[in-house]
């Protein structure tokens, strides 16, 4: 199963947010970490794809006034999602070790 670059970022954001990952917070944290402002459409598109690929699960939260009485949809990493992030990370590591002059600080 492939994981796109933006999808990976979104997945990381969901993981970082823990129990408070829903549309607006994910958008905020992405803006904070990357400095780019993804549109809600782009974000939702990635979220639905991640959901389809079963990297995340969703559950609905309570309605709030600032959302015009609508429910939040919370996202949470699945174990499959965690593993796909690990795999992506390992792949990057394995590749970058072989690049001479590229100095990477790793946990190893």
């Amino acid at each position, binding site marked *: 199963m492939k994981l796109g670059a933006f999808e990976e970022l979104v997945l990381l954001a969901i993981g970082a947010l823990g129990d408070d990952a*829903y*549309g*607006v917070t994910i*958008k905020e944290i992405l803006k904070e970490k990357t400095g780019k402002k993804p*549109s*809600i*459409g*782009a974000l*939702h*598109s990635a979220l*639905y*794809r991640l959901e389809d690929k079963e990297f995340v699960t969703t559950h609905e939260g309570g309605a*709030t006034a*600032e*959302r*015009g009485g*609508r*429910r*939040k*949809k919370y996202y949470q990493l699945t174990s499959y999602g965690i593993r796909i992030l690990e795999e992506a990370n390992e792949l990057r590591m394995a590749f970058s070790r072989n690049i001479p002059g590229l100095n990477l600080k790793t946990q190893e």
Partner: protein
Amino acid sequence: MDRKSNIPPKLAQWLLLRFLREDYAEEVLGDLDEKFYSVSQKSTPLKAKLNYWKQVIQYLRPFAFKRSKHSIRTTMLHHYLKVSWRNILRSKGFSFINVFGLAFGLTASVLIMMYVLDEWSYDKHHVGGDRIYRIASESDTDKWVAVPAPVGGAIKESFPEVETAARLVRIPGFETILLKGQKAEKQFFETNVFYVDSTFFDVFTYDFLYGDADALSKPNTIVISDDVATKFFGDANPIGEPLTIGLSFGDFIYTVTGVFDRERYKSHIPANVLLSMDNNDIGSWVKQQQSWIFNGLFHTYVKVRPGTDSEAFERKVDNLYQAEAGEDLEQAGFTKSLYLQPMEDIYLHSNLGYEVASNGNMTYLIIFSSIALFLVVIACVNFMNLSTAKSEQRAKEVGLRKVVGAFRSSLVGQFMMESLLMSGLALIITLILLQLVTPYFNGLISRELSLWNMPIVLVLLVGLTFASGIVSGLYPSFYLSSFGPAAALKGSLKNSYSAKAIRQGLVVFQFTISSILILGVILINQQMQYLSSQELGFDKSHKLILPLKTGESIQNSELLKSQLRSNSEVQQMTVGGVYPGIELVTDMLFFAEGKTSQENVDIQTTYVEGNYIETLGIELLKGRTFSSEFKSDTNAVVLNESAIKALGYDVESALGKQVYYALNGERYAMRIIGVVADYHFESLQHEIEPLALLISPAFSGPTRYFIMDVQSASYTSLVQSIERVWDEVNPGSPFQYSFLDADFERNYRKEMLTMQLIQSFTLIAIVIACLGLFGLAAFTAERKTKEIGVRKVLGASVGQVVVLLSSEFARLVLIAVVIAAPIAYFMMDEWLNEFAYRIEMSWWVFLVAGLIAMTMAILTVSFQAIKAALSNPVKSLRSE
């Protein structure tokens, strides 16, 4: 802060909901709202609104779109298609009958439509064609489509409304002439040769491949068709090349100045070769033609200026003629008036004396069009009948669909789809059939028709197919879908009397048409039989005709006779100006003893040489035939019975009496030496007219035919041996021959062809009607399975059951026959009136036609009835 401005923009929200998938709406709208409020708090509401809009617009991504209504429709369409296809497959026989019935009907009617359209296309291409008229004449005895030579020029000079005028002269016997190229081996007989004025191409539009409309402006010029050009010059440009025409009085050189595409346009003038009338062969004869009343051999066409009142112009033309010719007419003792024929109507409507060539016939066209219409209607009616009958069995399906929640519209769609699918299949089969059949049809009618060249027919075909699909889909889709689910499920639809009445009405209608066609075929057959069994008054069998087209062959005819005398298979020989069955245009005004030249009789004249009467086997009633022993025979005449009566003589006492004719004010006397029985010297469409056979060279026209009475076991070898003798005697003239009976029958080729076509199409119509009946009978038998079962259990015999099932259809067919009889009577009476010798319709013909229709119907139905009656009642009753 204004409360109103502090909410997300409604329009953007509405827009978003228009395209956003329903299951995403909650989350997306929630996120957007939350974002909106946070932005509007951090900065301004306006910025929040703009941002909202931006986000909404950026949401226009494929993943978020609704699965549109269209895609739901596609799904349903797919479903309909699947169900329709299964329905078609479930009853294969029925579907086969239905689809093929329609396809056969459409194929046949498309063929006819192509033919009819082709006939319509004649002379529709001429520039300003609606302003072209032909001057025709009407005398006491007949209508004649050509006029004397001076008429055309006089009209052109006298009336300013005439834009241009042109004459065409067709000399009988000269339509086929010998054309010679420069090399000796290049010589061919060409048909349809006409002499025309230099203005001919100003009146008529031709598609020139080489040369232009000025082609015939110089003397001794010739314009040929592309076929002729290829024969003589191959692919080279023939402009300026010489061509020699060989006539009975010499060879004449012409220069090619134009080549036209013959196939491009169709005209009542089927020219292959057009010669300038200003020439060295008949040119001087043409110039001598100053008489306003004699030699009406010039087909005269005028093109009037736009806006000319044709009726007023016609009166002017006739007034001019009466002013110029009145005196001569009075002196000659007959009347003649001129009238106009619209050129575009000539091909289909004019079948008068001395046509340029054999024309089409509106009556036949109407007959054909009616048959085409009948076929389409029968096929479509069948299609509808079978479809509706079949659909009633599906009441339960309709009920169930309704219970499950089908809308009426979707049921309508379902049935429409099904019937359109069937008609679509029929269309495909029709197109395939047409591809296969068109070459044979073309061979039969000797045309080059193609569906792809006739977009109108193609459009009509497609339109008709789908129209019949829609109409036959209408009944089940609207009628069945109108029922409540409970009624439909209970099956109360089975008793829908209105549907049954419609179906019965359609069966009656179909069989009415079929019966009319059957009657038509029987009567046409009878008429043709009658014609071919007519006493012709001469012996048409075993007569070999050699046309003498060259001066050489005419001079050597006596030599040829003496050479052939040694051939025992040649029994009699003669030479004549014409022979029976070909056109005879020479006539003379004769008057009897004691009468004035005004009290005359129009008698057809034929130049003959000795032995003519014997060779053709014409019955001599009184007196003797021509003989070289009598020197005075140049003043002798043999008349037929009609002529004797018309002159007021009596057959018994006519011998030795004189008849007179006046020419240029002088009176000439002829002595009657013999009387022959009336014989058909023209085709049987004409009544026998007064005829004079003359040996005097004064009556000889330009044509000569060598006529032989032959008896042989092998006509091929006989013709070969005659050809050898011919080649010895006439080395410079190609050998040509024909048989008299074949030539005579050529006059009926059109009738024969029409009969063949009508017969085949009638057969198709009957087959289609029976196919429909077969399907309906099967349907009825199926519906009555239980009834039949119960009846058999209670002791009904097979015969009784068959009668039960067949009687209903027999009754319908009987009604149809009764309706058809009077219609057919009037139609056929009209057709028979075209013949001078016609049959009378007898009552038994109608009985026979009725019996045929009835037998066909009963055979068709009883097949199903017997099948149903023989089935084991246990099978049909077990289920309850």
